[in-house]
């Protein structure tokens, strides 16, 4: 579950999920809705993403930055996560994901918000009382 929150000079996502894998998946859904609103996207092609970091929060920044990189540099539109695995290996958090998407088509994909950076502003993944997780991510636009 995610919610898009609007600030004066930027935009934020509030994400809740039952486990960390779902938190990352939900965050990617939120990112897509923020950027493309209701533009139709298709799973024409699958890509692998492998990331690691000593901190889960930093991994989340890297994860969303990767989707942004696909769009702004590779001109490739993220459709959805097909698979996410997240685990701690020694001191590092490791993420393995398969994401589907397609080449950017300006006729169909309208970019509603240009995310310039995923920030660390007050970024903290918190455990909720019900045993799930929540996080608030602020984006520079």
């Amino acid at each position, binding site marked *: 579950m995610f919610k898009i929150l609007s600030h*004066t*000079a930027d935009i934020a996502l509030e994400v809740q999920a039952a486990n960390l894998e779902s938190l990352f998946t939900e965050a990617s859904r939120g990112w897509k809705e923020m950027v493309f609103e209701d533009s139709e996207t298709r799973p024409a092609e699958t890509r692998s993403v492998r990331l690691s970091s000593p901190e889960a929060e930093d991994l989340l920044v890297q994860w969303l930055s990767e989707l942004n990189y696909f769009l702004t540099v590779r001109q490739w539109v993220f459709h959805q996560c097909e698979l996410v695995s997240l685990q701690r290996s020694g001191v590092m958090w490791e993420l393995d994901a398969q994401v589907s998407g397609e080449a950017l088509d300006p006729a169909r994909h309208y970019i509603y918000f240009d995310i310039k950076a995923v920030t*660390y502003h007050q970024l903290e993944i918190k455990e909720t009382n019900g045993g799930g997780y929540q996080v608030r991510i602020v984006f520079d636009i």
Partner: protein
Amino acid sequence: MKTLTYNDIKIEQVGEVTWIVPPVRGMRVPGKIYADQRMMEEIIKEDESIKQVINVAMLPGIQKYSIAMPDIHWGYGFPIGGVAATDLEEGVISPGGVGYDINCGVRLVRTNLEYADMKQHMEKLVQSLFKHVPTGVGSSGAIPKLSQKEMTRVLQNGSRWCFENGFASREDLECTEEKGTLSSANPDYVSERAKERGYNQVGTLGSGNHFLELEMVEEIYDAAAADALGLFPGQLVMMIHCGSRGLGHQVCEDYLRVLTNASHKYGIHLPDRQLACAPIKSDEGQRYLGAMAAAANFAWANRQVIMHQAKKSFQEALKISDRDLGFRLVYDVCHNIAKMEEHDIDGKMKTVCVHRKGATRAFPPHHPLTPEKYREVGQPVLIPGDMGRYSFVAVGQQASMLESFGSSCHGAGRVKSRHQAKKDARGKDLLDEMKKLGVVIQARGMATVAEEMPSAYKDVSRVVEVMHQAGISKKVAKLVPAGVIKG
């Protein structure tokens, strides 16, 4: 003189437009905020930017004051409109004091043309600019994609690369802050991913609040300074606002990670993770400084190539000779940067690292770094407003060296979120609304136009007035928009 309260802290007015936050809760120096009383009350009420002035004052090695300009608003780590100088031995460097868009800045170009004669050609001119200057998300292809070798040269040499490749004149370099090149740049410290984001982006505007605007000089406040800058009433001028594009953002992102680890390593307590920093003389600090300078050079090359493309647009649309067009750079300033500069610290001149985040260098007359042609009037300070009202040209004054580490304000600041601005714009013909204000717009998407409508911004004239009153920068001219291209 008034006293206002922010979270139990007494903020004292010490001058008509100057307020002091006393050093409390771990602050190493006091905070100093430039604002009139009404603005100050709004700042206290509106957001958390004063808290950020306080946080910055806690940075190791900070000198004299944590300063905020009248366009202060909440940013990541430092407030936007924040200025801090740190000691080279004891102090730190923080990417949060520079911002994501390294060397975001403003360039003003004058022409020999009068708006009254050009009004009828405005649509054609705007279309031509839109054709030659790529705008919008991931915009690319203004010039052929850079090779790896060329990218290294751009990062090393900035505007000088433009000069060597026919995109700049010698005069352009003279009229650019630092002559458009920070020699401390080290392209090896810029990641491959950052370079990848930049190969195709030299000469592109991007999106968000970046723009290229045709403007008319509506009012002159200081005839001698306007004359030195080559400005006259009714003149058509062009303003460019943009920065280092994806490359600069990636450098900031990369080094926030490096400097977060460095903060732990060097035992620096951070009140906010976005204030991640490292000692200036540490390896991590030096690497960030080298990469930041390279990104700054990239931004100068970007604005210079945009100017080159714009000249081509004018010539194509108007079929005009170089001499009749008179396309000359007035000045180019950066407002997101950290630089080594000499300043008076307790009566002694000392080199310090000045962080300016949403603040413009404003060196006074006779300062050795003020270009010779402006030596008698002061370095030009360019302050964009919003696309419906006005922007300003000012010149640096003596008080800036004594009071604000040679810095002035940088712009208006938002008053409405982009989301809200878009909601408010639904069902409206924004282009028609702007046309009624006398402004022709061409943009890649209407969303950006909606985000940037004048009602989304504060009135920049109040900000400029405060700096004028403080003796930091003196008003020279008011510019009103006539044509805009955006992402």
